[in-house]
């Protein structure tokens, strides 16, 4: 043995004077095992990071499919990491709520006017996105901007993209989701069992997440959401009804944490019709929104997405840009029924004389705000948008290209271009007048009450059927005497003879 091997280190003989082949083998083997364990741990870590940290959503190459089902970033829902809640609960919960609580929504989501297509388990306007280890769902533009039209009660509904979702009962949709999410029957067990009963595969990890975190988080998030927007949905205000939404009051609560109970009661009345989405390019620079509070199509789009549940953190700007590019030039839908071209030709002249200045692209006043005193339509929607909200909106997206700089408080309602106006019934900002012919009628003679949301079309009056038993059954009842629902104002054309009115609305079918 060499002398250096006998040296004593710190008074103790070193361990390795020599070693055996078995030692070498086992040392080598353990190193391999260690490497394998480390690699396995790394893989688990990577897989875990991918599972819990990746943000992915189906990509739809077809723009129409993207519009209908693509995510714009509204899936902010619950997770094991955060209580930040979205408008909708996670996928499995959302999908199973109607089945678990059938008494609360006997007809399912379709009964609320959400449009289902074959081959899709979610309705148009509801997107999926994997975030924070959970499949989330959110709303996209299409939920409020996809309408259905039928020629008759026995015809198949035609889905028109970009059209106001006149059939959608958004308020009761929100009410159901909130109410059912807090229902005692909605548990991890019931969600898993129901989803699997529907043919879904719920992975073990998802089951664990549902059991350990997600349902508790969901209940908390829902209670929190309820606390914020409860004053809007708890029955103390006029119903929105089908085809309408209060654009800015939920916005105040969800985005800015305003305590709605402290606001004046009348300010909380702000329901208005969903607008159409097509043909945005010529609208750039016009006063957009019913009250014309913004002149930028992009800002209006981004702001509207916030209404759908997108947050500044989760907004999918690339996806929104695709929507922007598409609706920039999306043509209005052609009137799907017969047109009397003789009347239409005569009506064109009347339109040019009586309407074009305010309602044609290129019209002198088109896209400008008409003072409320002049137009004299219902003022609630105008008043629900306030200076204070303008100030808050300006604080969103600070130091970024998305910061809002075009919001203003106006004093009236904007003159809207009337492209595709046949599909935009009912009329006026609050949808208080069911048809164009009714709009050309003196306010005192306009229908006081009617059903809205029924998608069979009235070709004579140009608008949806509103006064048949079927319409009353399918739609929500609209009372023009309730605050915010007034059908007064906009007297233009009311003095025309009936024949000219019929000529005019025949022409308006072609816009």
């Amino acid at each position, binding site marked *: 043995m060499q002398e250096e091997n006998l040296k004593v280190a710190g008074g103790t003989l070193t361990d390795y004077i020599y*070693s055996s*082949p*078995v030692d070498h*083998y086992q040392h080598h083997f353990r190193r391999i095992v260690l490497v394998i364990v480390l690699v396995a741990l790394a893989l688990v870590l990577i897989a875990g990071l991918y599972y819990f940290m990746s943000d992915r959503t189906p990509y739809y190459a077809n723009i129409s499919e993207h519009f209908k089902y693509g995510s714009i970033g509204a899936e902010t829902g619950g997770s094991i990491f955060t209580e930040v809640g979205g408008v909708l609960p996670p996928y499995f919960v959302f999908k199973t709520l109607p089945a678990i609580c059938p008494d609360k929504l006997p007809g399912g989501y379709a009964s609320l006017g959400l449009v289902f297509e074959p081959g899709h388990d979610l309705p148009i306007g509801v997107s999926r996105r994997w975030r924070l280890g959970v499949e989330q769902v959110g709303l996209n533009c299409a939920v409020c901007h996809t309408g259905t039209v039928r020629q008759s009660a026995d015809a198949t509904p035609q889905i028109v993209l970009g059209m106001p979702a006149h059939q959608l009962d958004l308020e009761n949709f929100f009410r159901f989701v909130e109410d059912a999410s807090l229902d005692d029957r909605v548990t991890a067990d019931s969600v898993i069992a129901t989803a699997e009963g529907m043919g879904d595969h719920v992975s073990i990890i998802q089951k664990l997440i549902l059991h350990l975190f997600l349902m508790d988080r969901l209940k908390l998030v829902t209670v929190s959401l309820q606390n914020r927007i409860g004053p809007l949905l708890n029955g103390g205000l006029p119903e929105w009804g089908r085809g309408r939404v209060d654009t800015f009051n939920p916005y105040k609560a969800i985005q800015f944490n305003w305590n709605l109970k402290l606001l004046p009661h009348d300010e909380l009345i702000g329901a208005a019709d969903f607008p159409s989405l097509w043909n945005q390019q010529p609208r750039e620079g016009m006063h957009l929104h019913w009250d014309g509070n913004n002149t930028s199509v992009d800002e209006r789009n981004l702001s509207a997405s916030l209404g759908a549940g997108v947050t500044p953190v989760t907004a999918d700007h690339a996806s929104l840009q695709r929507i922007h590019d598409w609706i920039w030039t999306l043509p209005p839908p052609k009137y799907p029924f017969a047109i009397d071209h003789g009347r239409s030709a005569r009506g064109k002249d009347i339109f040019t004389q009586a309407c074009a200045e305010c309602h044609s692209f290129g019209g002198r006043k088109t896209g400008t705000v008409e003072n409320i005193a002049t137009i004299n339509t219902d003022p609630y929607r105008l008043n629900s948008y306030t200076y204070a909200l303008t100030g808050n909106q300006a604080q969103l997206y600070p130091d970024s290209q998305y910061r809002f700089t075009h919001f203003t408080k106006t004093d009236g309602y904007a003159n809207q271009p009337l492209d595709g106006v046949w599909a935009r019934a009912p009329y006026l900002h609050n949808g208080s007048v069911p048809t164009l012919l009714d709009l050309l009628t003196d306010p005192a003679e306009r229908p006081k009450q009617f059903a809205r949301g029924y998608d069979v079309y009235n070709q004579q009056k140009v608008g949806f059927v509103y006064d048949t038993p079927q319409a009353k059954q399918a739609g929500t009842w609209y009372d023009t005497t309730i605050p915010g629902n007034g059908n007064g104002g906009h007297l233009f054309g009311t003095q025309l003879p009936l024949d000219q009115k019929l000529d005019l609305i025949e022409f308006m079918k072609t816009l």
Partner: protein
Amino acid sequence: MSDVIFEPLKFRNLTVKNRLFRSNVSGRFDNYDGSGTQARINWEESFARGGVGAIISSYVPVHLRGRIIPNYAMVDSDDKIPFWRAVGEAVHRHDCKYIMQLSHSGRQRDVPGVENFREKGLSSTSQKDSFHGLLCEAMSIQQIKETVRYFADGARRARQAGLDGVELHASHGYLITQFLSSGINDRKDEYGGALRNRAAFLLEIIQAIRKEVGTDYHLQAKLNAVDFGDALYPWEKKGNTLEEGIQVAQWAEEAGVDAIHVSIGSIFPHPLLPPGGLPVDEFNWWYGTMISSGVRGYMNYTVFHFKLLRPMINLLWNRTKKSHPVEAVSSEYCREVKKNVGVPIINTGGYQDGKVIRRVISEGYTDAVSIARPLIANRDLPHVLQSGKDLPEKPCTFCNRCLVNAPANPLGCYDVRRFNGDHDAMIAEIMKVYAPSQFSEQHLSAAVASEE
């Protein structure tokens, strides 16, 4: 009426008084350096006294690097000759023959010992063994030639010691098996590949021994009829078939062996040999001696240690045993070997019952049987059989507790049931091997006399 068991068996150069051979077995009775002790003499003499016709020694290493376990007397140098002479003389006093089993462990070193643990075992291959994970390296041609020489030298020393013959341990997975078996030998040179090549090492040893000791000295080979290399782990290779085993026996006969000792099993212990039980509780107590011998020691010990895991080893160990009897486990294969060779045959594996032994001899399965465990349990088994009984009062149960104790403890019968549950009585019986000691009156007075 004569009893075939007690008819003499004539080999070319040796006659044995009966057909009962003590098979090769011993304990760690000798000195660590391979020199012998009185305990070994006592051990061997006890069997001779019991009436066997011949004793085959335990494995006797022809070289230190080929030692299976320390504390076994070796025959690696001439200074060992006097000890073996003393063993032979003690045995001969009882009209019993003594055949030294020349052995080289190859890779199968159950306990390498302080001299060997820094070097891998030598083998035909560099692949570790399947059971304990014993590491090894393939022998060079020069090492093969040297090892052939060690065997020849061992045979010479046995003859010089006055022993009655030698046996080559060419079965049970030791070095010569490692060359013979297609399941182990992966050489690409003239000692690997075809069966003839794999048998070259054995045949060269036989030729070298014959050259060293002449043709008038008893030489036998213990061979596997079949390897059953996949008996424990089904993913291992099967090794040599019966046809190959017969062929090797024929070549050995041609090369000059006087007898074939037939066994089976590519490793030792093997699920089929020694036949009988697998005392996992004993493994739990004593396998610790072997944990660091191979790279699978810890794994094996873990399985032996935890009762929840023991079904795993029981499942593997027992899966091929169902198709074989415990008694006369290899007799069917032995008969096939016997049919194809001319020299006398000795068969081992599960022999105890007189009826069975008479049958295999009288019906041509074998010419003699070799016995280890039943003789450890009852050294006087030959006398019992000769008295007309087929079994002793407390026969061997083939529990294999002796086998598992062997690497750690003095060899003996560890089946306490045979001692009516009296552990002290069992230990006392085992310890008899140490009496008389070399410092007893008998030995001391003999030493004084020689000085005078």
